[in-house]
């Protein structure tokens, strides 16, 4: 297989990360000329008083209740995007703030598309690079880390009528600003912290081994892996530790930038398929599939080379030097398995598909779905149905 000799890399998001990062919000709104933002969030974020922290940091602007939509569900859908867009127009808003996880961020991306492209039906823009207008100012304040949505150029929005997930991929979807403040993610319990951390780990690993791997995304993925290797387990042990939390927020963000530019691969393709067919959680299924996907990739030369770097990032120089060159790729998989085992001991994250509710009778449907996931085209080799079946069987 030939590695790529051409790449595109795009990451225009301004990032304010760290302690008290949210206090820059007033200044940033002014810089973006936003005087009347629409805030998208959900009820639990309000109950956890995270919304209050946000509002206390918006100075010189009056926010009324109607500018805050607290009813965004756990899966972005067309109806909510439409309702939020109507509210945006009705209140003459001039910017969007997404406070929450992936679903809220994806809903906000959908609103931005509808407003900017002046359309009624978001389905007109399904696909890759279908948006062309100048987008509305858009600020993302994530309350989970690991998804990388704050730096991702895609949005997945479900159509309840057709029961399909609509995928939008465009560099225009990236926010102008992402604010990563540890106060926003402190409330994550250890189990969810482990799960979102593994999500970031998968993003970094897949960004490193896809067909579109390139020096720039590699730099982000490598840095993310280093942070994950040093901070994920300590953070799960001490979920309120600010230092570890900031490090993992940054890791999730960098892994997001990496995989947004060099795509996900076979692990995500199968994981997404399991999510859709067996209705299992994204974090759990990726946790189970990660070592099996990596093991499958060991048969490709360039993946083995990339995995050597993964060993260096996760385990450090000493272990890297002490390991025979031909064993380094395998040891990288072993390092990942060790991380997962530690996390299982601490939080009970799953190791088998059966454990999370995937049924063997669903395999054919999962394979069909995974084969038609665009991430699979970016995976090493030309993945066949049989390859996916083998991974599913091994992970079952």
């Amino acid at each position, binding site marked *: 297989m030939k590695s790529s000799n051409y*790449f*595109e890399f795009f990451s225009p998001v301004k990032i304010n990360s760290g302690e008290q990062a949210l206090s820059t919000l007033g200044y940033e709104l002014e810089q973006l000329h936003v005087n009347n933002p629409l805030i998208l969030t959900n009820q639990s974020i309000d109950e956890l008083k995270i919304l209050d922290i946000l509002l206390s940091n918006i100075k010189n602007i009056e926010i009324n209740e109607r500018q805050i939509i607290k009813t965004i569900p756990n899966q972005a859908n067309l109806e909510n995007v439409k309702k939020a867009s109507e509210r945006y127009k009705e209140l003459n808003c001039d910017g969007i703030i997404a406070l929450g996880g992936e679903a809220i961020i994806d809903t906000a991306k959908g609103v931005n598309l509808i407003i900017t492209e002046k359309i009624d039906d978001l389905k007109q823009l*399904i*696909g*890759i690079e279908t948006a062309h207008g100048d987008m509305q100012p858009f600020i993302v304040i994530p309350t989970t880390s690991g998804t990388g949505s704050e730096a991702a150029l895609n949005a997945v929005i479900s159509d309840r009528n057709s029961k399909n997930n*609509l995928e939008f991929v465009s560099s225009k979807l990236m926010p102008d600003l992402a604010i990563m403040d540890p106060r926003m993610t402190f409330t994550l319990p250890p189990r969810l912290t482990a799960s979102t951390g593994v999500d970031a780990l998968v993003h970094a690993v897949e960004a490193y081994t896809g067909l579109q791997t390139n020096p720039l995304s590699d730099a982000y993925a490598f840095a993310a892996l280093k942070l994950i290797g040093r901070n994920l387990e300590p953070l799960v042990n001490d979920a309120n530790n600010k230092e570890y939390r900031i490090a993992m927020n940054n890791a999730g963000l960098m892994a997001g930038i990496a995989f947004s530019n060099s795509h996900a691969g076979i692990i995500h393709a199968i994981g997404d398929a399991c999510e859709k067919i067996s209705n299992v959680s994204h974090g759990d299924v990726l946790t189970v599939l990660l070592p099996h996907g990596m093991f499958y990739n060991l048969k490709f030369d360039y993946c083995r080379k990339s995995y050597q770097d993964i060993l260096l990032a996760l385990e450090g120089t000493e272990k890297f030097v002490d390991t025979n060159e031909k064993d380094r790729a395998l040891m990288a998989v072993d390092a990942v398995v060790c991380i997962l085992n530690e996390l299982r001991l601490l939080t009970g994250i799953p190791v088998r598909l059966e454990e999370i509710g995937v049924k063997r009778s669903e395999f054919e449907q999962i394979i069909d779905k995974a084969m*038609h*996931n*665009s991430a699979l*085209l970016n995976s090493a080799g030309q993945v066949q149905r049989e390859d996916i079946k083998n991974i599913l069987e091994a992970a079952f």
Partner: protein
Amino acid sequence: MKFLHHLIDKLILSLIGRSFSILSDQDPGIKRELSYLPEEFIIAIAVEKNGRYMIVQKIEDSIKYYGYHNQTKNIDLKLYFKDEEFAYQVLAAKEGIRQAFSEHKVVVEGDLEYAVSLIYILEIIEAYIMSDQFIERVLENKFTSKISRLKLIVKALFLFREKGEI
């Protein structure tokens, strides 16, 4: 040189469309991917956004070839390259469509799952009409031909394109 590339792009894309129609009844891989697409599904492919689109439609599990068209309304899936030179790399068998897709050289308007099906189909068609070296270099999977290259090309040349409104 640009004109030559333009000519090659146009000819090969037309050959791909015609071959798609012929192979839709013969190749099991194409049949399987076609079964994934809805009935009366219309696909448009161009070498660049503002170029003419080669249009095909799935009707009763077969493909009808409509030739090149300017109007691209009622299209379910549109695929074009960011630049004609990118298209040339793929159509002149210097790079696989999968690689071009991964490298962000391809723009897709429509459902990405269907786009993935189309890319699998294009790979199979390329395997039929391109050289054996290309198959070996770009397409790693096992490929079993159901019709000889020469026979396919001759059949494709004599294929009538469908007339009328799309």
